[in-house]
């Protein structure tokens, strides 16, 4: 493997705090992500990992702190704007349209890139048709990339869990994101499926240069995959560094790796 080269800091989280009523989900958390990096957030259940992702893509609004994405600082943002700026994500509990086919689900990921309004699309004529063909071609490249040709026309509700996760990744990729947020991409998978998924994540990062922030429970996967790891515990940033640094960090061992939290 060649040396990994990273660009500028593309995402910077500064002193972010988030609470729901009296419950503090995040407390003064800061970290950054460089372009082209695979960044992991780990931590026990309830540590605030998913909340962190939700803050980054504008679903939660932090009471304090700022998020800087591609040089633009913000405190509040709507999910729609986040998507328009190039942030895409997958969810811990798969959020696909179960009755729709793989192809259609991934096509929905192109929604923001479509110029024609729904009337044009309903007519499916002229420019609308040409546009759809372009998007379809892009989606076919994703289908090829993720090796899901065989389920192109299968309703996703009928697919096994591991494949649904892959379709969800496909939909996120369809938005051509600069930053990809993956919430437990490997939860509930067997060893083989995990290996496949790891391979896809590395390939996405490699071939498209996409920056990736992921949450994952499987330690061996995290340590293999990521360039840097941020550790959260009870909403606080406990450690931040390369997998080796984190693995040797005393506080981390005590709080997470050593202790049973489930």
């Amino acid at each position, binding site marked *: *493997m*060649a040396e990994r080269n990273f660009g500028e800091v593309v995402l910077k989280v500064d002193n972010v705090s988030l609470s729901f009523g009296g419950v503090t989900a995040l407390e003064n958390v800061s970290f950054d992500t460089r372009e082209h990096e695979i960044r992991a957030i780990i931590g026990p259940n309830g540590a605030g990992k998913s909340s962190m992702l939700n803050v980054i893509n504008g679903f939660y609004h932090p009471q304090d702190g700022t998020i800087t994405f591609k040089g633009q600082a913000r405190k509040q943002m709507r999910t729609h704007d986040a998507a328009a700026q190039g942030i895409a994500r997958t969810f811990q509990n798969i959020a696909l349209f179960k009755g729709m086919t793989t192809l259609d689900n991934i096509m929905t990921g192109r929604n923001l890139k479509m110029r024609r309004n729904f009337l044009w699309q309903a007519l499916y004529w002229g420019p609308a048709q040409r546009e759809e063909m372009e998007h*379809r*071609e892009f989606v*076919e*490249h994703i*289908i*090829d*990339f993720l*090796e899901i*040709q*065989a389920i*192109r026309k299968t309703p996703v509700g009928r697919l096994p869990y591991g494949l649904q996760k892959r379709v969800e990744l496909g939909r996120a990729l369809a938005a051509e994101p600069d930053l990809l947020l993956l919430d437990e991409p490997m939860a509930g998978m067997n*060893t*083989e499926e995990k*290996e496949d998924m790891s*391979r896809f994540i*590395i*390939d996405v990062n*490699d*071939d498209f240069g996409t920056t990736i922030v992921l949450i994952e429970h499987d330690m061996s996967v995290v340590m293999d995959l990521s360039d840097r790891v941020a550790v959260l515990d009870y909403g606080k940033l406990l450690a931040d560094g390369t997998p080796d640094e984190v693995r040797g960090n005393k506080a981390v061992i005590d709080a997470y790796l050593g202790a049973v939290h489930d």
Partner: protein
Amino acid sequence: MTELDTFPKLLVDRAKRYADRQANREKEFGIWQSWTWAQVAAEVEQFACGLLAMGFERGDKLAIIGDNRPRLYWSVAAAQSLGGVPVPTYQDAVAEEMQYVLEHAGVRFVIAENQEQVDKVLEVADRCPLLEQIIYDDTRGLRGYDHQRLSSFVTVQERGRELLAKKPQAWHEEIAKGKGSDDGIILYTSGTTGKPKGVVLTHENMVVTAVNSIEFEGLREDEETLAYMPMAWVGDHIFSYAQAYVAGFCVSCPESTDTVMTDLREIGPTYFFAPPAIFERLLTNVMIRIEDAARLKQKLFHYFMGVAKRVGTRILDGEQTSFTDRLLYRLGDLCVYGPLKNTLGLSRVRLAYTAGEAIGPEIFDFYRSLGINVKQLLGQTEASVFITIQRDGEVRSDTVGPPAPGVEVRIEDSGEVMYRSPGVFREYYKNPQATAETKTPDGWVHTGDAGFFDDEGHLRVIDRAKDVGKLTSGAMFSPKYIENKLKFFPHIKEAVAFGNDRDHTTVFINIDLEAVGNWAERHGIPYGSYQELAAHPEVYKMVHDSIEQVNRDLAADSHLASSQIKRFLILHKQLEADDGELTRTLKVRRRIIADRYRMLIDALYSDQERCHVDTEVTFEDGRKGKISADLQIRDTQTFQPTAAAN
């Protein structure tokens, strides 16, 4: 005109004669992409010249690793045009198996389909001292690799174009140096015993075989085929390459291994090959779906399948049938057979072959009664496939037909089938001893199969000659015959029979997870794994009944009545090629299984009712694990022989 005695020469000719006819198709990005013969020739020319620029010399070996892809087929022609020898290898082989072939064949260049295959080659590259360059087709994931010994197919073609700009005739000059007696390919046989052997076939072997078989079957340049069997297998090489180049027909490659059934339907081949297992699986799928269909549809299906069973094969064989039967069959074609064939992707099939294993008579007749011309043949890598082929109108489920055109067949006193033909291989690569053991000085080849000619002059193969044994009573014991009878039941996937030098027969059973799983679902039987399902009492009962049925059949056979099965068990795991229990072409490796499960066999020949077993298994990525189980052993009833023994 020079003689077209090599495949590259044929390609140059086809590019002129069929310039605008399609030669290859591949589904990519959801659309069928196609290449005409002229385009294929240009692609091959550029790739070949790229190889030349990289230092490929006459006699060099190019290993080919991957699924059926047009570019991999082109690389076969490219290597051949430079006087090199392509060595296709089984794409699902683990790294060590691959290393053996790469090392033994002395491979200098490899073309691999994708990152997965490149990784495997890189893993063993240090142990293959002659290996220099790895070329890959799909670039995905390979960007970050060290490119000192790696290049993509496209960059090789670029180098080829540079060379062609300087020497426009380079390719044609190289092709002109080739002769029919040159080595055309080395195919490693998976081998049921020992290390694989590299069968060397010359251009002449394959060109003559292709010409003969094309003439015999009346294949034309407008045939359509789908190449989906491993490229390392001689059948694919002859059907999808040799015959295609000689006849000039179009070969399509599926989008991925998982989409073969859909692609089959879209292409609608006219010429089709499938091993019995695939015909069997297609039929199982049909039956499962029919059981889920509405009542009226089921009734229609069963009624018309009854009609087809009665008259379908006779109509196909051109025999006399009554007017009403023909009318009913026509109606059935409209309502059932036509749509069914369309779903299976077999509506346009003019000729289909099955070979490699015995096919169940019900399965065989099912397809023939639909009007699909499925025929059996006896083939071997050493023969460039064809030894015998069934003639149209003389097709039986239990024979493999008379000798193929140009082939002589004789039966040794030992019962072994021998043949001699223009397709007979030159040698086993770097293995003169094995060559001498298999091929006599006057060109006859031992098949290793035991068989005889029936009254119509059709060959009937019973078993591997070395597997036919004797019970202690002295009666003949043919394990494969018994296993095949068992495997014809849809819920039995694999069976291994023991009995040589024993006083009775016992068997291991592997259930068919798909068929039994579906049955379990419909009967509300929960199960978590293959192991759990296999141990279920209801499943045991089902297998038990099937075995007694087989015993009843055996009792009626004068030669085999004493081979009735006395005891059986259902294995706790599926027999796997990754564990070395099956060959890559999915044939049982008897000796290895007997060795591995010695404890279980001993238990079968004791009066134990249970037996504990620990087994090491290999996962797809090559790592190993262990599974253990407590297996039940059951006794089965045997029957009085109903035919007089002679």
